[in-house]
């Protein structure tokens, strides 16, 4: 994936945690602790989803970029993202 957006990950993660909290809840067998287990699943989903959301929102549109050492830049420029470069120049 050359270009990341917010939409695809957002949909994927929301679906995952939504599945965990809603669908899995249906399958918990009827026992004394059913309500507590459902509470656990919902709390877990909310916490994890919120944490991921904060992480992705924080670098959605950054005001500054990483400051790299020249050795690192040289290495990344030549060896690491060569594919990216080719894809990018092909699409231009």
């Amino acid at each position, binding site marked *: *994936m*050359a*270009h*990341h*957006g*917010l939409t*695809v*990950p957002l949909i*994927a*993660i929301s679906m995952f945690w939504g599945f965990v909290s809603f669908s899995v809840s249906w399958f918990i067998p009827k026992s*004394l*602790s059913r*309500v*507590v*287990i459902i*509470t*656990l699943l919902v*709390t*877990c989903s909310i*916490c*994890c989803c*919120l*944490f*991921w959301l*904060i*992480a*992705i*929102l*924080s*670098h*959605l*549109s*950054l*005001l*500054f*970029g*990483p*400051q*790299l*050492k*020249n050795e*690192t*830049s*040289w290495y*990344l*420029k030549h060896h*690491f*993202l*060569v594919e*990216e*470069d080719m894809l*990018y120049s092909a699409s231009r």
Partner: protein
Amino acid sequence: MGSMFRSEEVALVQLFLPTAAAYTCVSRLGELGLVEFRDLNASVSAFQRRFVVDVRRCEELEKTFTFLQEEVRRAGLVLPPPEGRLPAPPPRDLLRIQEETERLAQELRDVRGNQQALRVQLHQLQLHAAVLGQGHGPQLAAAHTYAASERTPLLQAPGGPHQDLRVNFVAGAVEPHKAPALERLLWRACRGFLIASFRELEQPLEHPVTGEPATWMTFLISYWGEQIGQKIRKITDCFHCHIFPFLEQEEACHAALQQLQQQSQELREVLGETERFLSQVLGRVQQLLPPAQAQVHKMKAVYLALNQCSVSTTHKCLIAEVWCATQDLPALQEALRDSSTEEGVSAVAHRIPSREMPPTLIRTNRFTASFQGIVDAYGVGRYQEVNPAPYTIITFPFLFAVMFGDVGHGLLMFLFALAMVLAENRPAVKTAQNEIWQTFFGGRYLLLLMGLFSVYTGFIYNECFSRASSIFPSGWSVAAMANQSGWSDAFLAQHTMLTLDPNVTGVFLGPYPFGIDPIWSLAANHLSFLNSFKMKMSVILGVVHMAFGVVLGVFNHMHFGQRHRLLLETLPELTFLLGLFGYLVFLVIYKWLRVSATNAASAPSILIHFINMFLFSHSPTNRPLYPRQEVVQAMLVVLALAMVPVLLLGTPLHLLCRHRRRLRRPTGRKQEDKAGLLGLPDASVNGWGSDEEKAGGLEDEQEAELVPSEVFMHQAIHTIEFCLGCVSNTASYLRLWALSLAHAQLSEVLWAMVMRIGLGLGREVGVAAVVLVPIFAAFAVMTVAILLVMEGLSAFLHALRLHWVEFQNKFYSGTGYKLSPFTFAAADD
């Protein structure tokens, strides 16, 4: 787990136990472990209670048990645990147990005494034999010559004292550490008149009492003169030496030795018989003692519980008041019915209303027990208030993980906890005595969840032993930056640090889909980004957590029927919290979404906006985030400040109004209330259900105890605590940032200073491999000791503090007490 959300309903139950069946009923209740007895004889001292004689008998029996146990332990045997569950024996069995135990104890004492005496005798015989057997050859020879020349004067001495130059002998044995002192004293006291020879025995003899081997020293003193003889005897008496008659002639010596050997042989046989008998007795003790101990322990507990009941002479029964969970009432009634029909009488149990706060009962299983434990460590909840434990099961490990986030460390913690959980049923693990291990073992489910969440947050922070991993391709393209800004290799060689600019097209390709971009771990300014991210994250999590706490208070108000508090307390609290700090969260998210790199130079600063919001001032250089921002902010501050007097005065004024309205009602109603006020604890009011009990109790409480100044004071304290607490607690959540930063930095330092040096050493495979072994060992030890144990404990403590103070003081009072049922379970384990 059942309903962990609030305490179960607990009722006060009055039991009428007929005297004949009282013991069996209470013993049955102890087996079930359902009820907690209330002490109805609190004003009576322990010596004046009804069953004090029985309790004393049990205690004496326990003393004998302790003696028997000590004897068994001394013999090196082990008491087997009692098999099966033995009920408390009926009182008539106590006599039988007492007799048997006394008999065994007496036998044991006799046998032990005999054994001691025999051993002492044997020891004496052995010493005597050793003394006789010890060859003091030259001395004897010298003595013979002296004896031979006893009639001729030694030196040309003038008669007198040297007339009786008959040589005498004193033979004996002395303990080795006293021998030099004895020798010295003899020399000083009787110098020149004696010859003493000390010799050590080759074999050590066992001390009869302690059983320790000691090598004795035998001595042979030849002296002349009566006075010297007396002196020597006195000295040897002082030193507690064993003196034996010495026979000069060889034959007499041999004969005596043989006799001694025969005697000691016989003695040894008798000793053997005694020890066999002793082991028999001990075997009987081993059989009898464990069940008897368990039974008497239960009996004593039953009598102590019976002592707490009050006696009703008119009805010939005991009256007990117990706290019992409403769910368990049928079981309680059935147990009473069963145990009393055996005796042919019937015991009765019925609910009575109570003015006191019942104890809290929350049933947990082994998973939820540790989480309930950490909530209870702060304070056991009031009866039927909201229990934070079910939410804590997730939020506590989550907040821990935010401060601890690292995939590698989290995985280690998870595996350690998993090992403990999988091995939890092994008996070796259960009976371990080490306290520190017990602490870790008790919290194994806690550690399991903490490790699991740490792995998750580790993936989000993109840290595995402080290394980042590119699961997805990074969102930053250096190549694009290099092409666009002309970063040729020569250019790179000249400039040591270069920054990627997100404004340049193609450099920033979008946010990393899951977590933090791995390029930040290579960047020199990664802390600038991470600090900003983590601080904002802490504030967001903090505001959400605290708002959740305030919302949980709603459930309390609804359950206790105090709906006025919803409007007069919860609403102002939420408005204050969300209006100020919820708005801060809004600003943070708005800036993340709206402000981009294109106008990065003039980006607004949230901090300055927030400060200006409170000071109602304006910074010209700080551009607003959205139009009419100042108006909105001013409105919010005014609204929040307006909520403070509502919070301060709302509830007290409402309570006062209600109190006055009630006083103005007709007197008939008041009489009824008065009767309710005077209701005695053991009045049998059968018709009261739980709702009426609750409402009635509350009404009486408010009527009887409405003191205006107290109510206003209480509310003022609550208001100040909440409002100031909002500010300080939000800032307190910044510890999430601080600790996660500390953990990341420690982890990075450990890697850079230890492992990277190890991995960068030497080109040859052999050298690097050999050197890497101790380096990795050092890395592993420091990781476990510093990062897992120290940082883990630190993050645990801070997560605990965040829960106890910042979260729970929004809704939890924690001033209750636990239901501790009367049970024999401790005796059975």
